[in-house]
């Protein structure tokens, strides 16, 4: 591909969005950024990645924060700002990549070469997937799904104007449990190709 292509993949926990993002990256031969984004930043800044990774996609605490002249006391705010700046820098440099979550559909919305997708799934499908993947009980899987989705939603909605999972914020919102992960990926590829050639 000659032109820049950025694929932003938002996802519900257990929807298979992560797998689909990797399949897309493989198809278009693009690097994938998810939690490894902070590792990349840590390497660039020559700091310990573990120090940063514990704040990844975490919402900021409700109380005991303060902002002075645009500087925030919240570590989460600062780590996320660092991630957003890093993404913008890559986008401005014309790089192509797949980015999972991290408010990317809003952070990079001014780039016409960015395609934003949200992967959702039926509740039962998410529970079954999580139980199989993590090898845990149904009760545990349900708790895990509720916890991660609540966290992602709080994180996203604090830093973005658009709401997490709201179809109006994405070019394509698709339920992965209806036609399976492979077919869902194929449909998305068809859309990206059409969109790419339509530009």
């Amino acid at each position, binding site marked *: 591909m000659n032109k820049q292509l950025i694929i932003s993949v938002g996802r519900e926990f257990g929807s298979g969005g992560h797998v689909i993002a990797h399949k897309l990256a493989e198809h278009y031969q693009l690097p994938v950024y998810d939690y490894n984004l902070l590792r990349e930043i840590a390497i660039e800044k020559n700091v310990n990645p573990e120090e940063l990774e514990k704040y990844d996609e975490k919402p900021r605490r409700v109380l005991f924060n*303060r902002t002075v*002249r645009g500087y925030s006391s919240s*570590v989460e705010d600062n*780590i996320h700002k660092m991630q957003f700046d890093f993404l913008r820098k890559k986008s401005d440099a014309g790089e192509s990549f797949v980015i999972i979550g991290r408010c990317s559909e809003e952070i990079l919305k001014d780039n016409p070469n960015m395609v934003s997708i949200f992967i959702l799934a039926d509740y039962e499908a998410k529970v079954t997937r999580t139980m199989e993947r993590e090898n845990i009980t149904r009760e545990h899987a349900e708790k895990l799904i509720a916890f991660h989705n609540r966290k992602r939603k709080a994180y996203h909605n604090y830093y973005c104007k658009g709401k997490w999972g709201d179809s109006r914020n994405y070019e394509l919102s698709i339920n992965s449990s209806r036609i399976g992960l492979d077919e869902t990926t194929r449909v998305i590829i068809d859309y990206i190709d059409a969109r790419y050639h339509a530009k």
Partner: protein
Amino acid sequence: MISMIMAIAIFVIMFGLIIWDKIERHIVTLACGLATAVLVFGVCMRSMDAFLETLNIRNIFTLGFWYEAGTASESTSGINWATVIFLAGMMIMVEGMARAGFFRWLCMTIAKTVKYKVIPIFLTFMVMSFILAMFIDSITVILFLAAVTLELAQLLKFNPVPMILSEIFCANLGGSATMCGDPPNIIIGTSFGYSFADFVTNTGLIAVISLVVIVLYFYLVFRKELSSAGNVVIDESKADPSSAITDKKAFIISTVIFLLAVVLLVTHAQTGLTVSFIGVLIAAITLLTAGKDVVKILKGVDYKTLLFFIGLFMVVGGLEQTGVLEVVADFIGKVSGGKMTVMIAIIIWVSAIASGFVDNIPFAATMIPVIKTLAATTGADLSVLAWTLAMGTDIGGSATPIGASANVVGTSIAAREGYPISWKKYCFSAAPATIIVVLISMVCIYVRYL
């Protein structure tokens, strides 16, 4: 009674919104100030006099506002325009200095003088942070000091967090030493008519004693972490002080203006020039010598903080005019049984603990009329209560990452460069240091004044 309840409600809402940190704090104080004007002075009190007294604009057009021949005047009512004007003047001066590269040059010069050795840099930067914060707002001091520390950490391969934490603490401590070092001190000084020399010889002395102990404390806490930094041979051209100077002419001019500001502040009790006059004069000289950079300098001024002060003084004026603060003063007087030792202990510890969690500026602004009433009703020495309040609010803010503006800026700069500082990490060293300095302050006040 209704007006008192209304004034308290507005004050509590204002504090709540500041702590919530979702709406910018200048919008919060201005909206609450407006609510005070309309609901407290207008609807409840129906008093135009109370409103005008709180607005306090007439004060600006009096000679005493600009020049004080003889004894200094006291004015605790309403908007403290002297604080607002002085801060605006200093902001303009500091913006000019920053543009010329003064702060980065100073940091790099000191690092070079100590031959880029980590422990000597650690010790000298603490002292420099203290001295700079005596004359310049601590946010600016930390803004530059933290940035240079991170730069040196990359070059010399050491962890910058201990150094940034100790610089933040010393900036807050330095701010307590003078009248212009920390906003609570400016408000206290201009409200009670104290001079720069008054602060230096009272809070300044306590701050210097505390500095000696604190430098030793931070050295003992962090020496292992910093000593383990490797002996790296650095390319000195990357840390060359002269490279920091962006404009040589502007650099010389801003240095002269800074020295002039220091001289004027140190001698203002002798010359009779008020801090308002000094602020306006320094700002005028900076702008007149700035050439084409005038607009850029003016754009760099933190107007939001100035608006924050104006709104805040209106809300506190509401509490004052309705008599709420007299009730608070009476309460402290009764609890202490009129004993000065108890009063000092209450003021210093309550101020310190409150300032650790909420902005110390609104707290100090609220407490000023309280200690004035307390002194009038119990016969306590007002100046002793003022120094106690200054030390409590200035130092208490050092205990947590949100206690003072410098803490927020310093930890934020570190985090953005990949060194997140959690509450636990911050409080581990800063909270004991704060307790030590508050104890030193309390003992000094007891020994010297009682």
